[in-house]
């Protein structure tokens, strides 16, 4: 029980909370539009040009970066605890920790790279 470990958990929980808030507010409408409404033709899908126009704006890139990064940390924390509790795989502590937060960091890096080099 080192103080190092306590500060890690507080930060990780904060990331989980922030990611949870962003996921709660933004992800439903995005899935509805891009996963259901546009593919099924309920609403007219935006053109490639319109989307590229949006994505070129720095504000939109920041928004997309947040949308792709924070929810991944939300997933990492929640999934890590679900594996601990749901499957009782506590003995794989370190492995799960690295896979979850490592995955979130990787996703964040990919999002950063893609959005930086978008246009």
């Amino acid at each position, binding site marked *: 029980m080192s103080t190092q470990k306590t500060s890690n958990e507080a930060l990780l929980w904060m990331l989980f909370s922030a990611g*949870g*808030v962003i*996921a*709660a*507010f*933004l*992800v*439903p*409408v*995005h*899935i*509805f*539009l*891009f*996963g*259901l409404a*546009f*593919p*099924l033709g309920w*609403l*007219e*899908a*935006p053109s*490639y040009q*319109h*989307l*590229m126009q*949006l*994505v070129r704006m720095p504000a939109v890139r920041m928004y*997309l970066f947040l*949308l*792709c990064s924070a*929810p*991944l940390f*939300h*997933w990492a924390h*929640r*999934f890590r*605890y*679900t594996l601990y509790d*749901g*499957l*009782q795989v506590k003995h794989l502590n370190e492995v799960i920790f690295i896979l979850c937060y490592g*995955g979130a960091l990787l*996703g964040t890096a*990919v*999002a950063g790279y*893609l*959005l930086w*080099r*978008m246009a």
Partner: protein
Amino acid sequence: MNPSTAKPVAYTEFHPRWYRPRVSVYWWLGEWRYLRFILRELSSVFVAAFVIATLLGLRALRNGPEAYARFQHRLQSPTAIVLSTISFFFVLFHTITWFNLAPRAMAIRVGGKRLPDFVIAAPNYALWLVVSVAVGWLVLR
């Protein structure tokens, strides 16, 4: 009970043997409330899946109109639609449980009395609607 057939008592240092059942790996199936909790936690997997799909979409956008058209086409396949529908419901479940539980973490007192939960949850729902409409408008414009 015939003493001669009784099992010998297993004593630990100061007391007789306790009964200590192990919690089963399937503990979460034992009760509907536990199952609902695990489903709530698993909604995070669908959130992560959405992020991956979005990153793939961004990559397709970057690779040009034909690549993006192929990506859109793949989103129309029956598997994709089924996955999108399931994801949508799970993510909705996340949103609703999140807004309903968030007030418990905040003990905001006004005039000596704690604010009831829905006073904190309701503005969240309202803001959610506003933000969703705003995103939709930006994308559809």
